[in-house]
């Protein structure tokens, strides 16, 4: 039991340092930075579909008292991510390349537990697989796994965290997709 506790503590602590991305199918050099993202589709993986749907329902029932933009306030994670990722990639891609379809399969959305964050540290997490296809040929261009982790330790960590956590995580997730596709920062 002590060991489990220790490993979980270490897991939470280490996740303050990194947001790992593992490439399953690398993007060909010829596609880097020259693809236009035309469509984005977000789905929930079988891993934690019920949990994610429950989070969506809770949000719709209670709303969000944060400073989340109104258009995202009552949207499900799927809908919010589609908006955030689309807007972010539109600001980064160059609109001149061949069209691509981005498919995101979310495995986990976890919010740091306040008590755990104060006592041992905890993390906010948004994790899932991204697959990018050529719109015309339907060929898989690249597949990678994005795990966005934001460590929260102590009262200060919670204070820095602020509000709109889901949106913060989605934006970082979108940024990693842009990096993987070789888009330049604008």
């Amino acid at each position, binding site marked *: 039991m002590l060991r489990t506790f220790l490993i979980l503590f270490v897991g939470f602590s280490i996740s*303050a340092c990194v947001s790992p991305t593992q490439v399953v199918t690398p993007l060909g050099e010829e596609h880097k930075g020259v693809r236009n993202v035309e469509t984005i589709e977000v789905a929930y993986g079988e891993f934690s579909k019920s949990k994610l749907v429950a989070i969506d329902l809770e949000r719709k029932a209670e709303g969000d008292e944060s400073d989340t933009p109104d258009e995202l306030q009552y949207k499900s994670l799927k809908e919010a991510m589609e908006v955030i990722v689309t807007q972010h990639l539109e600001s980064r891609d160059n609109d001149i390349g061949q069209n691509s379809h981005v498919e995101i399969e979310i495995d986990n959305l976890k919010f740091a537990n306040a008590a755990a964050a104060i006592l041992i540290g905890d993390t906010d997490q948004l994790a899932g697989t991204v697959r990018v296809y050529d719109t015309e040929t339907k060929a898989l261009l690249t597949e990678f796994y994005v795990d966005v982790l934001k460590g929260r330790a102590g009262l200060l960590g919670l204070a820095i965290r602020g509000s709109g956590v889901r949106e913060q995580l989605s934006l970082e997730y979108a940024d990693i997709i842009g990096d993987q596709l070789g888009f330049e920062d604008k």
Partner: protein
Amino acid sequence: MNKAICIIAVATVLISACTYSVKDEEAKQVGERTKSPIKTSNLDIELENEDTLKHEALVLGIMCSANKYNLDMAEDLRTSLSDIDKNGLLSDPKGADVRVVMSSTKSSLKCIATGVISAKCMAKVEVVGETIAKNGEAKSFAFSKSSIRPAIASVSAPLTTCGGGASSLAEASAEVVDEIIELVKLYDN
């Protein structure tokens, strides 16, 4: 402060990291998987390119990424094919009735915390190959199997925090092997 936490965390994770031999892990899970009774066929079977079945699973995400998961599906498939092979040797001087030629194998594992002290692992194993009948007719196959298990295989046993990952890989790879066996059995008229 943050830097110190990171250094301690990295060091502890490295100390606690394991290399799992998924085959051994499967042996520990004996009894959890019900196999259909083995019935020897009238087929002489050959297995080719079996080395492609030995590989390391790609761990996705942060959890359990400090561990290595080595899969040796070659031995499992060889054993299972031997069980249904006519003489049990997987070779015949007169030539095989069916050749199982492996092309590629890959597997991935992702583990996610589902609660304060609970986590799940999902393994996916994919194989591609072909079966070639004695008359030269080839049929390609591609099997993909997934398995979800709790990440902590046994809280009381040491070094098993990510042991459930090995169990889920073992289960998925065993199901892939079963699919190949069922496919080969179709040649037994």
